[in-house]
């Protein structure tokens, strides 16, 4: 017991130490700086230089782009509400508080850890620790300067960059929360999710969006089919393998369905995710370019629609009835599928991408159930499997990258997430356990972990 407590303290302590060290250092990544603005910046205080910039013709596009990115950040934020509702809808009533709590924790933890470490670890500029593979994180805030708050930096400010990317980071952890729902121990999950979002996500993110080795190879992941979705999906797979299925799910070689308690909540969740995706993909254009943003809106919506119909009819034909929850997963599969190529795959091929993803996801969900990988919400299939497919679709349906480089990229990102999670979640299992007791699982995690019920009156609860 003492050894276990020591190991846990070591794990937490070293993480805290790394992050505390980063608070002292203020590292500013070196970005491209327009020569004219640089000359101005050296001579004049920020407020004046900034005001001067805002008088220039370029400020109009900058302002609109920056605004669009901020709106997109808010839309991606809404996806967390979507995740919270879809997960609680597909879970049992007795675990609802626990599922909601995990989602509330993730958004709060995600934004803060990204500020403390992740943002600079993911976008190191020149400050790599291991070139192209790993960079140390640090506190994100900077002294305002025209280098960072005008078009000298990008079509948006440093702060906009941070908040937009911070919303993405948290979604990676929330993918895992659905797959491990209804039996994972709360404290173990909170520790794992913190480590995943703080350290693992910025590493793979830096490989591509931070200008690392995948970017140099020509890998193409517009908004994160691999960097967010496959990453989350394969982290989820590793955790589910270590965690085990819910009690009573697989008995005598048969699959016993554990019904979600609220299809309305699940549907609301998916529609919110769909809404948020307009920001997830639309904002990834990284400016308000009318052609590109409108194209991305169209490909995103077409793929989602095709994914929904693909799953609908696949479940109708192969599973006898049109299944609502499969159709909802199909919409998400289409969205995940188009995420890598929303700006490079043309509308006709976007429909095909979504359609194939919607068909794949149904068979994937059934497959994982057959091999006793219990995933209450289908996160591994929607995000992991369709994330890989979406990445490959860029090569299949557009000319933006070769099949080989897409395969290397998506497999290495998925493998990293998988191995990281296997090791970290496995370590947590050894040190403190990752599962609630059998009794708590049958009574419901709401009462066991939180001492609260989601539905205390006569109503949806059943034990």
């Amino acid at each position, binding site marked *: 017991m003492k050894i276990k407590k020591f190991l846990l303290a070591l794990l937490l302590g070293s993480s805290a130490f790394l992050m505390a060290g980063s608070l002292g250092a203020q590292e500013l990544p070196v970005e491209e700086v327009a020569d004219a603005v640089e000359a101005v910046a050296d001579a004049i205080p920020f407020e004046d230089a900034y005001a001067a910039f805002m008088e220039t013709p370029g400020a109009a596009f900058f302002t609109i782009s920056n605004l669009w990115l901020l709106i997109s950040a808010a839309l991606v934020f809404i996806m967390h509400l979507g995740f919270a509702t879809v997960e609680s809808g597909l879970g049992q009533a007795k675990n609802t508080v626990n599922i909601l709590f995990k989602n509330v924790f993730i958004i709060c933890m995600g934004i803060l850890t990204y500020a403390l470490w992740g943002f600079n670890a993911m976008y190191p500029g020149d400050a790599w620790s291991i070139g192209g593979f790993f960079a140390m994180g640090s506190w994100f805030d900077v002294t305002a300067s025209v280098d960072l708050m005008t078009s000298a930096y990008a079509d948006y400010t440093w702060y906009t960059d941070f908040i937009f990317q911070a919303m993405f980071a948290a979604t990676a952890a929330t993918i895992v929360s659905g797959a491990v729902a209804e039996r994972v121990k709360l404290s173990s999950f909170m520790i794992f999710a913190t480590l995943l979002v703080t350290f693992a996500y910025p590493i793979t993110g830096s490989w591509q969006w931070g200008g690392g080795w995948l970017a140099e190879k020509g890998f193409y992941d517009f908004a994160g089919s691999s960097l967010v979705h496959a990453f989350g999906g394969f982290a989820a797979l590793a955790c589910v393998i270590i965690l085990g299925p819910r009690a009573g799910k697989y008995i005598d070689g048969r699959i*016993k*369905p554990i019904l979600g308690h609220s299809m309305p909540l699940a549907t609301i969740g998916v529609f919110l995710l769909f809404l948020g995706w307009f920001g997830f993909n639309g904002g990834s254009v990284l400016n308000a370019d009318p052609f590109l943003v409108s194209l991305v809106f169209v490909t995103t919506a077409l793929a989602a629609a095709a994914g929904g119909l693909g799953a609908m009819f696949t*479940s109708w034909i192969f*599973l006898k009835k049109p299944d609502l929850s*499969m159709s909802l997963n199909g919409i998400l599969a289409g969205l995940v599928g188009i995420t890598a190529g929303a700006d490079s795959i043309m509308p006709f091929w976007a429909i095909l991408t979504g359609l194939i993803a919607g068909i794949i996801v149904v068979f994937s969900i*059934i497959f994982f159930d057959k091999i006793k990988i219990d995933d209450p919400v289908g996160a591994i299939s929607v995000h992991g499997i369709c994330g890989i497919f979406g990445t490959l679709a860029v090569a299949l349906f557009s000319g933006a990258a070769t099949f080989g480089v897409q395969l290397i990229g998506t497999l290495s990102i998925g493998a990293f997430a998988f191995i990281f999670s296997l090791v970290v979640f496995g370590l947590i299992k050894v040190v403190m356990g990752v599962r609630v007791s059998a009794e708590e699982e049958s009574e419901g995690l709401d009462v066991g972990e939180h001492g609260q019920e989601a539905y205390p009156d006569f109503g949806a609860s059943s034990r």
Partner: protein
Amino acid sequence: MKLVKAIIKPFKLEEVKEALADIGIEGMTVTEVKGFGRQKGHTEIYRGSEYTVDFLPKVMIEIVVDDADAEKTTDAIVKAAKTGKIGDGKVFVLPVETAIRIRTDESGAEAL
């Protein structure tokens, strides 16, 4: 006094309530229940896996009436709740020892 306990199909509730009102019976307690008798369940499918639902949703009505009213109460319920198809339900009559109206402390037949 008798307790008339009827288990009926849920969509028949309004009809039964009106039939009882027509014969002057206006108080009742209704519970949502699940159950089965000879009516078999049915198969449902969730995310690719089939399962049988044996317990079917029903509604249980409980009314306490004077001994003299018991027969017309059960007749009204049976007539209104019948569809002729399996799963229509059952009616039971049980004896009641005491009845008290909480607001006024009346007991016995006056409490009904």
